[in-house]
């Protein structure tokens, strides 16, 4: 579904990614791991088209992804979340979710300004859809809360919900459980499994919590200093000497709380 070939990225004197190649197949949950600064977020930023790679190719469902601008990537079905929360803090939860539905809005500027029935209906339907998802997760009480006032874990979950409302085929999650309690992490793992299994959404995720990654992913890709040093099933990765080496500096497994 998604294929990276020899992808490289340079920032000034820093080679952030060096000929990275890996693939994500339809229906998989793939983990992208590596120590701090390994280049994981940079991979996401390249897929989102925020950066122009200094070398290599990215293709999605056989199409060349590098032809598109960031806002067009989502139209192809790739939606992401951000490591440092991409929520809009001065909007309510519901408004944030409705931004996730942005591409389903089509009313013209004029019809919106005049408050024509079509624009009103569209607004009402989208709102209902967002509320449905909130109710599905038993969070409808939060609909009108301002996002900046909510706990971090809740915000992470809302960002994931917003991504889902954008109807992804491939979901990119950057550290989805960072800062969550153990119970929240377990709930999140179940939720991601469900998204993948019941809703048929392919997932590529970055996460430092090793037990979370090992317990959830079908396959894992390990980055270190911008290079892929290993990829395979979780059991294989846990045995891999080079991976253990890469993590030793930070204390195996719990790279970052």
């Amino acid at each position: 579904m998604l294929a990276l070939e020899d992808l490289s990225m340079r920032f000034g004197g820093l080679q952030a990614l060096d000929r990275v190649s890996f693939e994500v197949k339809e229906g998989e949950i793939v983990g992208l791991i590596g120590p701090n600064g390994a280049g994981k977020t940079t991979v996401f930023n390249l897929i989102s088209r925020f950066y122009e790679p200094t070398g290599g190719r990215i293709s999605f469902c056989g199409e060349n992804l590098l032809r598109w601008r960031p806002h067009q990537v989502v139209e192809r079905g790739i939606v992401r979340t951000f490591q440092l929360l991409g929520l809009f803090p001065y909007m309510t939860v519901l408004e944030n979710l409705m931004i996730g539905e942005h591409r389903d809005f089509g009313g013209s500027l004029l019809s919106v300004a005049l408050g024509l029935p079509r624009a009103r209906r569209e607004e009402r339907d989208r709102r209902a859809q967002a509320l449905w998802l909130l109710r599905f997760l038993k969070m409808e009480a939060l609909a009108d809360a301002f996002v900046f006032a909510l706990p971090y874990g809740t915000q992470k979950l809302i960002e994931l919900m917003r991504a889902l409302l954008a109807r992804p085929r491939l979901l990119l999650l950057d550290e989805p459980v960072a800062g969550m309690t153990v119970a929240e992490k377990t709930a999140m793992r179940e939720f991601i499994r469900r998204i993948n299994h019941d809703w048929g959404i392919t997932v590529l995720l970055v996460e430092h919590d090793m037990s979370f990654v090992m317990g959830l992913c079908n396959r894992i890709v390990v980055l270190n200093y911008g290079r892929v040093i290993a990829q395979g099933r979780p059991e294989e990765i846990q045995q891999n000497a080079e991976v253990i080496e890469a993590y030793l500096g930070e204390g195996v497994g719990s790279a970052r709380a």
Partner: protein
Amino acid sequence: MPRQIWLALLGLLLIILPFGLKGYTVYILSIAGANILAAVGLNLLMGYAGQVSIGQAAFLAIGGYTSALLMTKLGLSFWLAFPLAGMLTSLTGLILFIPALRLGTIYLAIATLGFGAAVQQLIPLPYWSAILGGHQGIRVPRPQIGSFVFDTDLELYYLTLVIVVVLLVLSWNVARSYIGRAFIALRDKPAAAEALGINPTRYKAYAFLVSAFLTGIAGALQAHLVGHISPGEFGLGKSIEIFAMVILGGIGSLPGSVLGAVFLTFLPHWLSEARLLYTFLYGAALVLVIIFMPYGVWGFFLRLYYRFPAMQKLFPKGA
């Protein structure tokens, strides 16, 4: 529904307001109406979409001259010339600034600044003084429907009231729609906004279009109220004044812009005895307001609102 009641009371107040007032005060109120449109226009651009324009006075000028000339030279009726003035202003703005919109905030700021200087320099040139009237400017006809001419302060006030209310409702609709949300998203976290499919150039262009339209209409309205238009009115000072209305009222708040515009329209008239003192106090007020009410007067009200539950009872949420 309490909200409807408040709005109805406010509407009633605005209708009976001019009866206790001097004719001149009523006239200044109408001018405030034109300024409200200009301030709301800038706020949608700056407070919502995060794009800074320092050349709004140029759009006022374009709107004013266009409406006047369409009436006097082409013989169009007020009802045609007036909205056309807004549309032509926004079209001009859009064509000129699409390249700048793709760049960062500072670039739009300088492009609009240069545009403001250019328009003020171009209008009085001798080549077209037969049409534009040079430095002296031109006379602007009074608004007219059929054979009814709006020419007293009171008639002009009610005309202004209708125009301002209608356009405020339209602006409010846009601000509360998916388009308004896209503006705020691009302002607060441009990367996240794009990653959700919001096309930055397109929505910045929308913001610019709406802003230039409202400002063009404001300029036309002002010209018709004053009955005259000349390039001297549209200097950098005027752009800064509109800017200040938005900031004082609170960036990103439409009701705030309304308050800011009314306040700054009346302030010079209250202080007109002492011009120097006025300039000084005006400057000092800008600095002090931002120090003590960083989110403007409206933001200050809101903070009071959340601090004192009594106010929340008086004005229920969402009002």
